Every structure is written in C-alpha cells, then in structure tokens.
C-alpha cells in the first residue's frame, strides 16, 4: 500500500460500522478536521496564527468516534486525535487574536469563527465530549453516605497524597541525558494552559451563586493580574518561555502537546461549558489549586537544578505563593462553602470532581514522563527498532515499558504488510502517535524524526529504524526532495 502524508494510515477501523448516528458524527468531525485551517504547514512549530493548527485529518480518519474512549487509551491515538479537535472547539469559544495584529490574518479569523465551522462545532460538540469523557462515569465512582465531613477528609487525603508523591515528569527530567530538552518538553505541556490561562474558569463567573461566586472571582482576578497585563499569568508564563528561547504565541507548540495534557486542559472546559457539572468543576478546581503550590515548589527545585539562574521562574514562584491562598480560598470559600450551603446532595459531585482531577493529573504526569524518556533515548530505540525488524525478541526497556519484536504486520499490529508513507520536501508537518508500538523504518531518501519541540531532530537514512512505543508522539520531516518510510507493527512479547 502506498500513501501520501495526507492520507497517512488510512486503514479505517470504522469502515465496518453500520450507518447511523456514530457514522454521521464521524463525518462531521472529519469535515471539521479537513478544513484548510487545520491541514498544517511546512514548519515544525506553528506560526503566530492562533486559528491554524494541524489536526492531521488523515489520522483523524482512522478514528472511530462512535465508540467512546476507554481509560486505558488515555495516551493513545484516538485520545490525541479527539482531544486536538475538542480543544479546538473549546478555544473557538474564546477570543483569540494574534499579538502582531489581524491585518494579514483576517481571512483566517473569519473562517475560524465563521458560520461553517461554527455549525459543525455546535452540531457535534456534545457527542465529541461524550466520546472523550464518558469513560469517567465508570472509571470514577462515589458511593456511600457523603457528608461535608467526608468531603473534607477525602480532600485532605487527596492533597496530602499529591504533596508527598513524586512528579513523574520532574523525575524524568532529572534523569534525562539531556535535561534541558526534557525540561522544555514539560514546559510545552504547560503552555497549552499557560498561554490561555483561566479561560475555562471564566465561564463559571456568570450567574448568581452567592459568596462562593465572589470567592472564585478573587482567584480569577489573580490569574488576570488584577487588570495589569504584565502581571497576568499568561504574561509571566511567556517570560519563562522567553528565558528558554522558546516561542510565546498560541499555539506554537501545538504539534507537541500530548494526549493526556490535552485531556486535562479540555476537562476543565468540559465541566465549565455545562453548568449541570458545576459542582464537579468546583471539586476539580479546588483540587487543582491546592496541589499547584507544592507542585510548583518541586518544579522550581528541578529547573534550578537544570538551568541554574538562566531561567525565569517568576511564573512558578508566583504560583507557589499565590496558590497557597487559592488553595485555601477554594477549599474554605468554594468547596466546603458550597457543600454547607447546598447540602449533602451535592457532595458526591464535589468528590467526583476532586477524584477526576486527581486521575487526569496523574495521566498528565505519566504521559509527559513517557514522552520525555522516549525522546531522550532515541539511540536505544534505534537498536530496538533494528532488532525488532530482524525478528529478535527485544526488551524495549525504559520508555514504553513494553517489549517488542518485528511482526511484519501493519502499523496497527494486525497481520498485513507494513504501511508505506511517502513525503516530499516542504510537505505539511504534523505529529501523531499509535495505539500499539510500531517500528518506523526509512525506506527511501533521508528524513528527520522529530520527537521534541526544542531538541535536535534525529536524522534517518535508508534502512534506519526506530521503535516508537504506543502513545509516543512523533513527526517525520523530509530532508531529501522525496523520502518514504514504512511502519511495521511491533507486537508485545509476553
């Protein structure tokens, strides 16, 4: 099978699905992802244009949106594809304007917010949310007689657990052979929220819900720097990025956002869009605010260890300080106050929000740590890839936590020929991942394997192979005028 980059891996797992609601939903989502705004450009980083982001429409075409995501798929291909689209839907309900002005981007502005894409969004947003988050109903469960005292006890337990626990991402940075690039990879994941900070929260400020509304507003005005742009959290996050010589525009690093961090960001929009979920939001945001302060203390320690005084950590110091107050305010004046005012009937939802935020936060860490470890050990994964193609059982130690051998199967791991992908220099650049481990082998020409936003790419020549563990995000950039690579399924060895 020969494909171009724009119909990468077009084996359609949904093709056997009977026509019906799910099929219609898929076509609408795919129609959105295929819009010219979302088909990518030749650069690895996105240009300063918040309306264009690569949605990899041909990778989206593989996704069966009729079957909801499973918890076990949190870092998988369906999760990444779905959350990229969902995040774009949500951000289309916020105001995004480029710092340099709209002069040359007016057409993109009109298309991004225009009626065609808006109608698609409105027609399938709820279904896409259901696809992305309905697993939470089974994965998290609150039972038994829940009171304010139970809520307080559980909250204290969850926060203490986070304070005492190790950050998987920070541990991966500390253990990386190139800790600077590893640290940048973590910053990239934070940039997803850091450059549009508190946008989801803003959706909970309207209405009338008493003193708890005013308490939440206090946090909101802190996030927005009390009306002083230079003090806005997005501004001080940009200082952190600039100190690392990184881009500060929305969303320069779109291609490098991972599935679980995107899910975490989308989760707060998900709860904030539908006010039937307000009490879940209150639980989730209270947990987040409570664990931010100790989390940023750990981040400061790690980043000082990597960069010394060469990095601007005002953003982390601000959070380490102000989130102590936010943690207290949300706990006492939002979480517990809502429970006392509205009774034990709302406590299960508050508890659910805490538990869901805890779960997604853990996945954020694990997904990011796995990407850091893999991108930091590509040489080892070249050996594993070559060994897998030779048919030797190999231990894929470290990053993916899996073992693999060449199967000669398709990229999906089932029987069949490997997928062949052809690229020409200057082709649209995008990144993707796979649900199963694959071996990427360059068949013709030369190409760069891109696994991080700031690290050097890995040059591949004909015959070179790299094991890509399940979930790991990569892109391929043609170096020669034309190149081709194959994706071989790599099955776990038990």
């Amino acid at each position, binding site marked *: 099978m020969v494909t171009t980059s724009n119909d990468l891996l077009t084996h359609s797992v949904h093709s056997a699905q009977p026509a019906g609601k799910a099929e219609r939903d898929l076509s609408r989502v795919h129609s959105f992802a295929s819009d010219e705004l979302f088909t990518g450009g030749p650069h690895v980083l996105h240009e300063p244009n918040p309306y264009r982001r690569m949605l990899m429409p041909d990778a989206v075409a593989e996704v069966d949106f009729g079957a909801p995501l499973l918890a076990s798929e949190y870092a998988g291909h369906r999760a990444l594809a779905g959350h990229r689209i969902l995040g774009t839907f949500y951000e289309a309900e916020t105001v995004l304007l480029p710092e340099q002005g709209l002069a040359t981007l007016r057409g993109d502005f009109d298309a991004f917010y225009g009626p065609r894409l808006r109608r698609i969004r409105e027609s399938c947003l709820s279904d896409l949310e259901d696809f992305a988050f309905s697993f939470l109903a089974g994965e998290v469960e609150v*039972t038994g007689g829940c*009171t304010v005292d139970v809520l307080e006890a559980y909250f204290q337990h969850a926060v203490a657990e986070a304070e005492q626990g190790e950050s998987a991402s920070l541990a991966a940075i500390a253990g990386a052979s190139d800790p600077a690039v590893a640290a940048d990879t973590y910053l990239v994941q934070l940039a997803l929220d850091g450059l549009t900070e508190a946008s989801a929260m803003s959706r909970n400020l309207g209405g009338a819900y008493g003193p708890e509304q005013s308490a939440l507003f206090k946090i909101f005005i802190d996030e927005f720097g009390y009306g002083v742009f230079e003090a806005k959290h997005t501004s001080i996050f940009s200082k952190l990025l600039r100190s690392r010589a990184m881009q500060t525009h929305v969303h320069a690093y779109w291609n490098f956002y991972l599935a679980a961090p995107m899910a975490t960001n989308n989760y707060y929009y998900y709860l904030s869009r539908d006010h039937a979920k307000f009490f879940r939001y209150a639980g989730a945001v209270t947990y987040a605010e409570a664990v931010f302060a100790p989390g940023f203390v750990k981040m400061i320690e790690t980043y000082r260890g990597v960069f010394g005084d060469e990095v601007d950590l005002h953003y982390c110091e601000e959070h380490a300080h102000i989130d102590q107050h936010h943690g207290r305010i949300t706990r006492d004046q939002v979480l517990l106050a809502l429970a006392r005012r509205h009774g034990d009937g709302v406590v299960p939802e508050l508890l659910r929000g805490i538990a869901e935020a805890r779960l997604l936060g853990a996945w954020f860490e694990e997904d990011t740590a796995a990407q850091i470890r893999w991108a930091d050990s590509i040489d080892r994964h070249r050996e594993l890839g070559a060994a897998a193609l030779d048919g030797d059982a190999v231990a894929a130690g470290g990053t993916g936590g899996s073992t693999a051998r060449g199967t000669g199967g398709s990229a999906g791991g089932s029987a069949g020929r490997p997928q062949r992908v052809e690229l020409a220099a200057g082709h649209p650049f995008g990144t993707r991942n796979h649900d199963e481990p694959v071996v990427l082998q360059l068949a013709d020409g030369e190409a760069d394997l891109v696994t991080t936003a700031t690290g050097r790419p890995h040059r591949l020549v004909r015959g070179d192979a790299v094991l890509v563990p399940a979930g790991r995000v990569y892109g391929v950039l043609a170096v020669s005028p034309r190149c081709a690579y194959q994706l071989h399924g790599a099955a776990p060895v038990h």
Partner: protein
Amino acid sequence: MSRVVVMDLSRHNAVLAGHERYFVFEQGGRRELVRDRCPHRGGPLSLGRLTPDGRRLTCPWHGTRLTTSALRRTALPMVRSGDHAVIVFPDLPAEVPVTPVRWRILANLPPPAEAPTAGGPPAPEVSEP
C-alpha cells in the same frame, strides 16, 4: 474524627474495622462497601445469595431477605478511581485497627435460577437495616 483508608480493589474486597466487617458489593456496575452484618441476627451477608429477581439478598443464617437497596444504604463513603478506592470511616477512633482483606463473596454471584428453599419458619423480610 473521620478515618481515611486506601484500598486496592484488585487485591482486596473487604475490610475489617475493629469488630465490624464490610465487603464490596457489586451490582449494576457499581461497587459499594457495605456492612457485612444482617440486621436480623448479624449473619454474614457477604455469604448470602441474591434472589432470582436480583432485588434481595438472602442471609445464609436464617434466610432473612434484605433488599439490595437497604444493603446499599449501609455503604461507607467511598471514592473509587479504577481499582484505587479511598474509604472514609466517619467517627472511627484512631486506635481501632482497620485491615483490608480478600475473601470469597457469594453475594456478588449471579442469582440462582430458583430461590433456595429453607426449612423451618418463614424467613423474615427486612427492607431497612
């Protein structure tokens, strides 16, 4: 004073808290940590069987039938995420030992085709613990 206990449901399905026992009762996709004590004479409900309609649990001691909704009302507060469960014991003194355990729970088996027959006097029906 509330006590918080963490339990791995892939390893444990019951808890001993002092002289009280609780077991994980599974029905309709929900897992709840309910009291393992029949309100009649304290029999181990975890060894009881569901009636054929699945709506009652028959205590193995005297055949007392307890509605599953009444059983669920004895549930301790529990927040489950996957197999990670956090249980909050309201008003459990710190010195009372709490031990997660695993044992066979017949109450979670599918209901038998026919109700078990019991000799002696009619079994009492209990709808409230």
